[in-house]
């Protein structure tokens, strides 16, 4: 017995510590790297705390009932088979959950409205994020440059991602910086994000869009303002301009690696990946 117990304990400690080591540092949603993710995390922890009240209450009651009222031989006390209900108790467990919900919905609504606005007062950088299965294109209208499957942002400045799609819907998700939003064809969406520090964060598409969906991963590289300016300058001077061939490759169904362009071609026309095919043979 003793031996077993010891072994169990060491197994438990081992399991927990591997989880901690491999896990906690990497639970990215719980380690926000920007104001948006931080605000969302506040809501997550607040809601988790509220839910824990319910968990404790229900688990305690559950254990109490099971231990106290399990059928035992002999004892006839405390058995009231005809008990119908109890007005007071029932009121309590209707009202308390309502209070909990009020405590949750108020910060929820506040945050919902807050996230529509820029997360800080700095001058925003506009980046158009276009999903085209199965890749992400990031166009910088202010700078005229484009990156594919990676994006560079200045730290500490609000980023206004304008989401668009060629082909099916995807969802831009950079958990370290904040929650996601869908990119839909022909319906421009806006997602505000910001990074607190220079660093590299992982982003991906969170909405299934077919076979190549897993490949829609990209790095978000946050740079200090001066590094960022230098990078833009470097792209403008050294990267190639987008050719028509590049453009066709990018807008067709394909998986590509990272690319950089000093100039991009604005997408226009029907938003299927291959419009010609669409017109020719919808159905065969």
């Amino acid at each position, binding site marked *: 017995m003793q031996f077993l117990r010891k072994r169990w304990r060491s197994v438990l400690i081992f399991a927990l510590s591997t989880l901690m080591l491999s896990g906690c540092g990497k639970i990215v949603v719980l380690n926000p790297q920007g104001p948006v993710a931080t605000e969302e995390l506040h809501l997550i922890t607040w809601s988790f705390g509220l839910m824990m009240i319910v968990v404790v209450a229900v688990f305690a009651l559950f254990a109490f009932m099971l231990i106290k009222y399990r059928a035992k031989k002999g004892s006839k006390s405390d*058995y009231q088979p005809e008990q119908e209900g109890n007005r007071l108790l029932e009121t309590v467990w209707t009202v308390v959950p309502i209070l909990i919900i009020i405590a949750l919905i108020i910060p929820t609504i506040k945050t919902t409205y807050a996230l529509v606005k820029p997360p800080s007062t700095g001058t925003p950088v506009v980046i158009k994020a276009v999903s085209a299965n199965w890749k992400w294109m990031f166009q910088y209208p202010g700078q005229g440059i484009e990156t594919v499957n990676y994006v560079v942002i200045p730290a500490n400045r609000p980023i206004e991602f304008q989401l668009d799609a060629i082909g099916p819907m995807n969802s831009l998700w950079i958990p370290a910086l904040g929650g996601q939003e869908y990119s839909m064809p022909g319906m421009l969406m806006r997602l505000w994000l910001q990074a607190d520090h220079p660093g590299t964060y992982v982003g991906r598409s969170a909405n299934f869009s077919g076979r190549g969906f897993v490949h829609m991963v990209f790095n978000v590289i946050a740079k200090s303002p001066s590094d960022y300016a230098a990078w833009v300058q470097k792209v403008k001077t050294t990267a190639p301009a987008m050719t028509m061939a590049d453009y066709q490759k990018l807008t067709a169904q394909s998986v590509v690696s990272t690319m950089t362009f000093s100039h991009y071609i604005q997408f226009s026309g029907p938003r*299927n990946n291959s419009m010609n095919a669409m017109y020719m043979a919808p159905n065969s």
Partner: protein
Amino acid sequence: MLHSILQIGDKYFMWNEGPMIWTSDALIVLTSLGIVGLLTYLKRWKWLWDEWLTTVDHKKIGIMYIIAAFAMFFRGGMDGLIIRAQLAIPNNHFLTAEHYDQVFTTHGTIMILFMAMPFIIGLMNIAVPLQIGARDVAFPYLNAMSFWLFFFGALLFNISFVIGGSPDAGWTSYAPIAGPFYDPGVGENYYLISLQIAGIGTIATGINFLVTILKMRAPGMTLMRMPMFTWSVLITSVIIIFAFPVLTVTLALLMFDRLFGAHFFSVTHGGLPMMWANLFWIWGHPEVYIVILPAFGVFSEVVSTFSHKRLFGYKAMVVSLVAIAILSFTTWVHHFFTMGAGASVNSFFSFSTMLIAVPTGVKIFNWLFTMYKGRIEFTTSMLWALAFIPNFLIGGLTGVMLASAPADYQYHNSYFLVAHFHYVLIAGTVFGVFSGLYYWWPKMFGQKLNERIGKWAFWIFMISFNMTFMPMYFVGLMGMTRRMYTYPAGLGWGPFNLIETIGALGMGLGFVVMVFDIAYTIRHPEKDLTGDPWDGRTLEWSIPSPAPEYNFAVIPEVKGIDAYWMMKHPKEQEPGPVKAVDKSKIRPIHMPNNSYRPFIISVAFFVAGFGFIWQWYWLGIPGLIVVAIGLFLRSFEYNDEHFISTEEIERTEIAAGRL
């Protein structure tokens, strides 16, 4: 010659895809031959036809639903295990992306529409008429129609695996990836048409049970005296009637896009892909309540029976069911908060979703207090019901967390969500139907399932379930999204995924043990001679097990909630066994005839569906014509009922020891 055969094999049977398909083909052929051979050897064809395929008896239909649900649980569970095998370790390439996409699509679709739904409807069929003191459902013939439409819908969906290829756009089948442009081929057609056929059957079930419960209750059973399971089915039927037509229309619209070149959902011609998401979830959210409310009903019966106590707060239980039903239609947008419909829209749907927690919480506390001052007996059925409370709570509370729109921006489409919906679907619906199965098994077959093996199955399944899905919450917060066919190492996801896979194997084992329990019970039955093995409270326990064809020799008189308990515990006298059937009150009983037509019409639906899937209109249109002829002939069928004579009733009741 050989060449062209191989070509056909590749085109229609996907022989070019290798050994997996060949093995499946071989297994399917062997199993079918085995079944045919066995039936022939045992000379059971006529029996099969007379007793089952043409039956309109709600009890037999219920049993067939449950058998089919078990088979589909097996199929969907295998899909689940394949998913878990693929995700066990990082960078796994056991499956390709194409195959993985098919597997999670069929897994989700089968589990919800062809496992959860029929299991629930099976239990409804078995219990509701017995609980309300009726001799069958209101429309027995329509009931058979419902079953066979479901059955052939499910069959049609399943054959996609070996003929033409499975759908691969997720169980949500969002346009445009499920549209003709991104998803050519027949897979999605299978999805659309098989769900359509099964869905018609479900609508009929909704109507049938609504009418049955409203019109066929025994004298004295007012609405507020109905057993809670019956209440839950009544409310569920109303949800079905309002929700399923939306699915019918939605599927039809996408079918027009795919088969006839319409553009309801394609951007290029002014269609609206997001309309699919809206329409789908306007059905889809009520749908999850369709599969959970009857499970709630089962828990109410089981908890009260095995606490040997009245249900606590009956009225509140009814009111909360109604509240959930209404709210279930006001929350669909929470499935796409991230669509960016605006802060006010998201705030509204956050709130409406959170509100559902209130009536649900009321129910949880009422179950807990049903045990208060009771005498809790830990049968297998009760174990499933008890395990439901903490496990479902975890699913429900994480659901409230998901309801907070800004937080959902971080959870959406991640494994956090996958964990949430499995916690509610498995700890709610699956635990519920298993609880109901152990509870009503004696009524279905006149024998109790073996409790010892059953408890093993319970513990294995329940613990493994937590092992499978608890880590998913964490891996979701680590950024893993759903529907990824593989993932890189180095993100810390690996260990969690491995634990999940081991858990999934455990769930598979639990399921096998349960099936073994059934097989064991068939060989070593523990007969239930009393008809009331659990000291039950509702009318189904007042008749012999298994229930005779006509259910009640004499329709009982109901004096309150828990009608049978009241008969056993009359106010003035000592409690004791209830008087057997009063011979003088036996009258000939009027029963519906069997009919082969529901089966035939459903076969025709199947053929028509298959034709439309392949766009073989020479097959599809004649199929539909046969359906129409079947319906037409049915309206001129006058001789569709018979009487059971008093002598025969007496004979049956004597054999059951009631006279």
